[in-house]
């Protein structure tokens, strides 16, 4: 309520149902979150299909952008998982570019519509559970029960194992939590901070002589916007890197 327009800084995170739907007793409405995901997927698919249509040996500008994305994710996968990890390239690329585009779409201000999908933990937790589910299923498929050796650190005296195995298990369980909380908290906190500082401008302008201070939060908001773009890109990258690090356990088994 503090801001100039009379909006709360967390109003931007409200889910609005555009087309109410219900499936098997669950609320499956088409919301602003769904809309942004549909926009993101269409943007990504459209861009990648259009830009790689020419398949030129000497790439055009558009194709270069696609190739930069490809090589960036491919090198991340190869660095963290190794060449065998390339079978997971489609997964990591999809996650990276989905989060990347959603984060950046949330930075484009459209009054009353702008929504950052990744600022909701339901979305990030679903992505993190997908990753950890694939790690567990692929690990069990590839290594059988030997996959559980990742909980038993090597080169450790046996009497320490009763202490270390629970620690390793807790560490493993905390992965999907930290993966989802990190992305969600960064986007949530960043957007709230942006909104609050922007709100100060209006408040100061309406406070008589204090209006002379209004340019200060304005400058800060500009700087924060740049920082938020950095965070948006960085968090997409971090999500992809951590996915790779976790997949490494599934591919290579015990470390």
């Amino acid at each position, binding site marked *: 309520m503090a801001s100039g327009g009379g909006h709360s800084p967390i109003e931007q995170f409200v889910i609005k149902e555009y087309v109410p739907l219900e499936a098997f007793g669950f609320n499956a409405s088409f919301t602003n979150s769904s809309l942004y995901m549909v926009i993101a997927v269409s943007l990504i698919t459209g861009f990648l299909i259009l830009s790689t249509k020419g*398949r030129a*040996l000497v790439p055009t500008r558009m194709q270069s952008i696609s*190739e930069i994305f490809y*090589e*960036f994710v491919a*090198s991340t996968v*190869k*660095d*963290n*998982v*190794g*060449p*065998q990890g390339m079978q997971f390239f489609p997964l990591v690329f999809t996650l990276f570019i989905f989060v990347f585009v959603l984060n950046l779409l949330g930075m484009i201000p459209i009054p009353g519509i702008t929504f950052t999908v990744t600022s909701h933990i339901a979305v990030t937790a679903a992505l993190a559970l997908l990753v950890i589910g694939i790690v567990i299923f692929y690990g069990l498929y*590839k*290594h*059988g*029960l*030997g996959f559980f050796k990742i909980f038993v650190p090597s080169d450790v005296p046996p009497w320490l194992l009763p*202490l270390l195995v*629970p*620690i*390793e298990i*807790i*560490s493993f*369980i*905390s*992965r999907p*939590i*930290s993966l989802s*909380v*990190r992305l969600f*908290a*960064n986007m949530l906190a960043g957007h709230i901070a942006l909104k609050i500082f922007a709100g100060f401008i209006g408040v100061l302008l309406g406070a008589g002589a204090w209006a002379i201070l209004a340019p200060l939060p304005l400058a800060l908001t500009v700087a924060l916007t740049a920082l938020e773009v*950095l*965070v948006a890109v*960085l*968090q997409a*990258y*971090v999500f992809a*890197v*951590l996915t790779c*690090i976790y997949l*490494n356990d599934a*591919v*290579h*088994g015990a470390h």
Partner: protein
Amino acid sequence: MPSPDKDDAITRGQISPQDRAELRGRTDELDRRLQQARGEDHTTPETGRQEPKATQTTNKGLGGSLRSSTEMIAGVLVGSGIGWAIDKVFGTWPAFFIVFFLLGSAAGMLNVVREGLKMKTGPSDPKKGPSVPDDEDDN
């Protein structure tokens, strides 16, 4: 970058065998020259990215610091949660909560240290992971 085009063209069968051999020779030659050029200008051949070193490390440091806080908190939360749940089931509050809180803190530290080490050593010596022969001891 050349390999998808090359492979695609070959599978589509639009290239005669001698052209194919010549094309392979040329791409191999190009690969060798690229490797050579990369060796000279000190960019890591593995990542092949041309960014200046400085921005790479600052980005990594920023990402690392943003990461480690959540790693720590997640470890503590999961540990405490497990301990609390065991206490709830067996009515032994707060024995298991205390034990698992400590284990959770240890797991959080482990997360921070491990991810930190991986981020640090990962890209610089990428041979470390892959070079280990994939000993699938399925027993």
